[in-house]
């Protein structure tokens, strides 16, 4: 069926579009991940897909490649409506996504990686090795790569692995390539190589969707850009007509509203001091948090913000540096138990794999961090568990059938409240929260913001990591931004400006402060 028959009144699908997505809506558990998202990429262009974390880029990509199916909306190839029931169907239609982390199978050779699965030349079930090598070599030659065919893919450098993944995509005759953060782990020279290959693919008429947080790259490489925000496509524009400031402000948008409670509970008593902390990614980090203060920490994924919280909470070892709670200095890498005893509690990033035991009941989960306070002489008191559970469920408004209900049956917001209840039962002096509202609906988000402020008003020092700048500004008193393991900027939330914060996120502090 052609698009003209299906939508006589709406705009006609772009006939030149190698791949177009229109009015895509996708909900997860009733929450909109995409609500009117669209993208149109032409043959022979490199098209940047931009947006903040949580804007819906990755969900859109997964729909483009058949990993998810949209609740409504349509996909078109050259104006013709298509349905991608799964990844294979999308691949057959020439649409291939390359993800940073699963680009190659490390345990088999380069040649086999290039001609995987159905592409492997075989006769009567036997692999035709000579033909395999010849065709693999031809694919690598076409993108000017000299990678030994017999090497194990796992022994290649990241950029070589990316190249092998390209060669594989080309071997399947991909016409639309979707690249998700392809330069995240590459050096400058490797990026140059990659760009050269991308440009040659563009010459060959391949349509490329390029997702990146590095705006400079977008302006260097791409022809057009599409910006998403809150699950919607906001605009599509020629890169030549765009300005980086305009792009940033469009990505960020303008809306906070009454979501956030009032500030002003900070005291001058220091609750937590971190001095010269070094970890795997974290470098030279020093800061203080006061009682009653909410400190927000921002930065891009991989900037070291989660590691910082994990180190302070004792969950991860650190190389050097000092952590002091109140007047007590913690020993190096104390372990979670001792950090908890010292008054530091962490609400971790991944709720389902780090926060709650999904198969266990609410009360068992809450008891988990409080085993010593609900027991005496090694025996657990059911009554005391019931006490702290009732209190937690009441204080946090946890909606559940009973305290014995498995946490896995609760909604995401209620699961997060269970994690909070578990940690709050310890009465921590310092509460660390990593993405406390990720995947939670707006109503529960507001509740969590209020709770954070209540805790602060009660004298708790709260440190929250968030990828969402509006949230960071709305709920914090003060904001630190991390870039490549270091603190790249600091601002009072009341004076904060999203564009400046985003610039800090990209490590561009100096443009706004002083010169380099």
């Amino acid at each position, binding site marked *: 069926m052609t698009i003209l028959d299906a939508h006589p009144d709406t705009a006609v699908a772009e006939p030149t579009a190698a791949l177009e997505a229109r009015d895509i809506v996708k909900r997860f558990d009733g929450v909109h991940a995409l609500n009117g998202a669209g993208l149109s990429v032409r043959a022979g262009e490199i098209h940047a897909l931009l947006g903040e974390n949580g804007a819906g880029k990755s969900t859109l990509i997964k729909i483009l490649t058949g990993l998810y199916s949209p609740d409504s909306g349509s996909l078109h190839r050259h104006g013709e409506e298509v349905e991608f029931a799964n990844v294979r169907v999308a691949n057959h239609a020439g649409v291939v996504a390359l993800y940073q982390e699963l680009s190659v199978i490390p345990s088999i050779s380069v040649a086999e990686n290039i001609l995987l699965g159905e592409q492997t030349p075989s006769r009567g079930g036997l692999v035709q090795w000579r033909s395999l090598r010849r065709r693999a070599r031809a694919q690598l030659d076409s993108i000017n790569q000299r990678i030994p065919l017999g090497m194990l893919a796992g022994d290649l450098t990241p950029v070589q692995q990316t190249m092998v993944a390209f060669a594989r995509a080309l071997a399947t005759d991909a016409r639309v390539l979707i690249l998700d953060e392809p330069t995240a782990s590459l050096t400058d020279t490797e990026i140059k190589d990659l760009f050269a290959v991308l440009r040659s693919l563009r010459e060959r008429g391949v349509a490329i969707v390029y997702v990146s947080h590095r705006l400079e790259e977008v302006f260097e490489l791409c022809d057009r850009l599409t910006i998403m925000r809150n699950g919607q496509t906001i605009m599509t524009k020629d890169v030549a007509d765009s300005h980086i400031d305009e792009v940033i402000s469009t990505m960020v948008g303008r809306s906070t509203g009454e979501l956030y409670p009032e500030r002003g509970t900070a005291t001058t008593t220091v609750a937590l001091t971190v001095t010269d902390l070094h970890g795997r990614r974290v470098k030279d980090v020093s800061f203080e948090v006061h009682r009653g203060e909410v400190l927000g920490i921002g930065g891009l994924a991989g900037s070291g913000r989660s590691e910082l919280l994990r180190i302070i909470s004792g969950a991860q070892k650190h190389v050097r540096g000092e952590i002091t709670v109140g007047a007590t200095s913690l020993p190096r890498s104390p372990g*979670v138990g001792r950090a908890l005893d010292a008054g530091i509690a962490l609400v971790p990033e991944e709720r389902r794999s780090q926060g709650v035991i999904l198969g*266990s009941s609410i009360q*068992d989960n809450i008891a988990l*961090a409080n085993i010593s306070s609900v027991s005496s002489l090694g025996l657990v008191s059911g009554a005391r568990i019931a006490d702290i559970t009732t209190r937690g469920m009441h204080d946090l408004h946890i909606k559940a059938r009973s305290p014995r209900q498995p946490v896995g049956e609760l909604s995401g917001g209620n699961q997060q409240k269970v994690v909070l209840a*578990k940690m709050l039962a310890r009465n921590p002096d310092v509460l660390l929260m990593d993405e406390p509202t990720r995947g939670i609906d707006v109503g529960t988000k507001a509740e969590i913001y209020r709770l954070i402020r209540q805790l602060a008003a009660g004298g708790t020092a709260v440190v929250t990591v968030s990828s969402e700048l509006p949230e960071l500004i709305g709920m914090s008193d003060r904001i630190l931004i991390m870039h490549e393991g270091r603190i790249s900027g600091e601002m009072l939330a009341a004076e904060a400006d999203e564009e400046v914060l985003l610039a800090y996120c990209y490590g561009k502090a100096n443009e706004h402060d002083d010169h380099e």
Partner: protein
Amino acid sequence: MNMTTTSNPVLEDSADIRTTPRRSVGQMLLSSGTVLALIALIIFFFAMRPDVFLSFTNVKNILYQVAILAIIAGAQTIVMVVGDFDLSVAATSSLAGAVAASLMLGGMPIPLAILVALAVGLLIGLANGLLIAYVNLSAFVATLATLTSVTGLAFIVTQGTTLFNLPAGFNALGQGKFLEIPLPVFIAIAISLILWFVLKYTTLGRRWYATGGNVEVSRLSGVNVRRARLLAFTIAGLVSAIGGILLTARLGSASAVQGDDNLLFSVAAVFLGMTIVRSGAANIVGTMVGVAIIGVMSNGLNILGVNAYVQQVVTGLIIIAAVTLSSLKTRSR
């Protein structure tokens, strides 16, 4: 849904948390395919041989036959609660029995020989625990390795033969009776009760279940998961040794491989038992149901004159049937 609009969003029944009815043990058992399988087996064998199967003597026999397996399966339950498993439990029990026998034949007093044998089991468990919790070997690799070495040690201790002529006082532990019921039955019941209590009511049991539920969540909640796993394997080693010593006393002899069947049966019993609770976690009550199934099967087929090899085939099939039945039910929920 915005829960802030509700004045008391916690539902009514949470007001009386302490009296919220737990599913009663009876309900729990009846809702499980595994328990139904056990009941079906009992009815079947009773129907086939009404004169023999449920007689006092035969029931006593079944209990006697499964007592050692119950102890080994108890040990296996602990490690499976923490989310691991232990391939070396049966080999450890054989070695402990062999050590006790060999020491007594060498003239060591009975209590001392038993203590040394228990210590051997404890040390093997400790080694497993160290390898798994601290060296980060997988439980499969670590316990397969100790299984191999421990079996070798048992052959060395027994010099490849069967040790017998053990002191009568020692054999009485396995062969003596109290109220017409063999002592190992009482010991197995006592150990099961202790393990049940530890798993259910102690902080250690909490930590074990938490670790088995999710290692990372437990660690981030301040549970010392390494120590929890170390203790689980150590105690499993100790309990296995108790089983092995009792087996030696029951048989009045010790050989290097006499407990080997108990490995697979112990794992099977725990798996069967995991099907009777909603959470699907290893638990002592369930394990004992599993042990009972295995015991009833083997005894019933014996009474019917089915040969041992066929028994083994049928046991496997019953395990598949019971676990499949339970998982079908879980899926339909």
